[in-house]
């Protein structure tokens, strides 16, 4: 008997619910949506360098590569300066290319190899857009490098100070490290 009452109530309920739903929808706006939820994509992100040491190491490597290319281009009297593109960017690339042009214009070339030693990490900086820069103090040594004119005569000044302090900046982007800036540090000579 009681069962029958329940059945009746159950049978009528959908109508009541439907009516209530219509009222609710009218009052409160739609709760339902057909928009399909999409999972937010995730990606692993790691800092560019795990430590100062790693940043310094990367900059050293990049600068060694830069100097190797620089020596090669200057041995050739500044020819094929596009070789710099693999190891330099920005200001450093511009300066390197214009230096190579100067070598061509003056018909000079170098012999020997440049070397350097790293003094200290100056700063690392996140520049945005996935670019991280690392600035390092280095002591450039050109004592093994000679500058020759087209007749093979050395143009090196007797007063040359072969070891000079520089600040070089390397930029890491898309896992590629290039030297982006290279400037003489004029404040003090931390190399001597």
């Amino acid at each position: 008997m009681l069962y029958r009452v329940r059945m009746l109530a159950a049978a009528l309920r959908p109508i009541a619910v439907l009516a209530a739903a219509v009222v609710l929808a009218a009052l409160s706006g739609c709760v339902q949506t057909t928009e399909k939820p999409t999972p937010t994509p995730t990606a692993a992100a790691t800092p560019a360098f795990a430590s100062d040491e790693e940043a310094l190491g990367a900059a050293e490597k990049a600068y060694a590569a830069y100097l190797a290319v620089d020596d090669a281009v200057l041995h050739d009297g500044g020819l094929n300066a596009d070789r710099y593109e693999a190891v330099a960017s920005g200001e450093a690339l511009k300066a390197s290319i214009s230096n190579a042009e100067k070598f061509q214009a003056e018909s000079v070339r170098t012999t020997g190899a440049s070397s350097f030693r790293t003094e200290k990490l100056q700063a690392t900086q996140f520049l945005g857009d996935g670019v991280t820069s690392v600035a390092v103090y280095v002591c450039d040594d050109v004592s093994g490098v000679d500058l020759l004119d087209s007749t093979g005569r050395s143009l090196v000044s007797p007063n040359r100070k072969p070891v000079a302090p520089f600040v070089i900046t390397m930029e890491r982007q898309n896992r590629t490290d290039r030297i982006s800036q290279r400037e003489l540090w004029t404040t003090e000579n931390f190399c001597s």
Partner: protein
Amino acid sequence: MGIMVAACLIASLSISMPAAADDLCDRFGQIAGGCDVPDSSGAIVDDSVELSAQTGTGSTAGDGDDGGASAEPEPPPLTTVIGVDGTPVSRRAVEGGVGDAGALGCTGPVICNPLPEVTMADIAAFRPTRPTQGMEPSGWMVVGLPANFYGSATADVKAGTLLGLAAQVRFTPLRYRWVYGDGASAASRSGGRTWAALGAAEFDATPTSHTYGTTGTFTIRMAVDYGAEYSFAGQPWRTIPGTLTVWAPDLTATANAAKTVLVARSCLANPSGPGC
């Protein structure tokens, strides 16, 4: 973005640029011996950052070094600045540490860089506790009658490493979403509650109930969209743009048809009627 620490840039940029290197010192000048290589010596002794303490904004005013050739050049003061999070400022700069504008302040020779924007991708290693979902009746429903669905997710604080620094990420459930498996879906700010908790009767409609129109077995999926904030070393919470969606374990339930007959009178009035 909103995380830029603009006020802090004043002292920063003077450090990395030496007084503009003179034109002669390209590679040609360097090799030929034309560079004006400074005489003074002095090793860089500190542990991290080189700072030529130029406070204020004056452009190049005081860099030429005091009084001509007083053969005693003053090396720039070298200072290791440790941020409030215990990280040297130089590393903080690259790794997006905080504190540049915080307790440390930006007075004095502190490198302050804009903090990088932390994105949802950066916090991929942090996960909120997985939400759960439930339904009433458990595992089945009646076609044409509301089944009640509810999800449970809590605000969660997870500790870990963010951009190389110890950090906390706080997750707050913002939205619950259901995909009912019959083509319908719904979203709600609240996760819903059981009929009992709502003081409702069985098969009552609730803000998170759903009524199936056909019989069948359905997989019900529920996700929670979390908002996230991060904090380094007790620094204020900063909001990360976007939301993170985490799915609860699926439910499977069967919708059955309940056949009912409409009768003219109750069993009390008509004890011999159908079903009585």
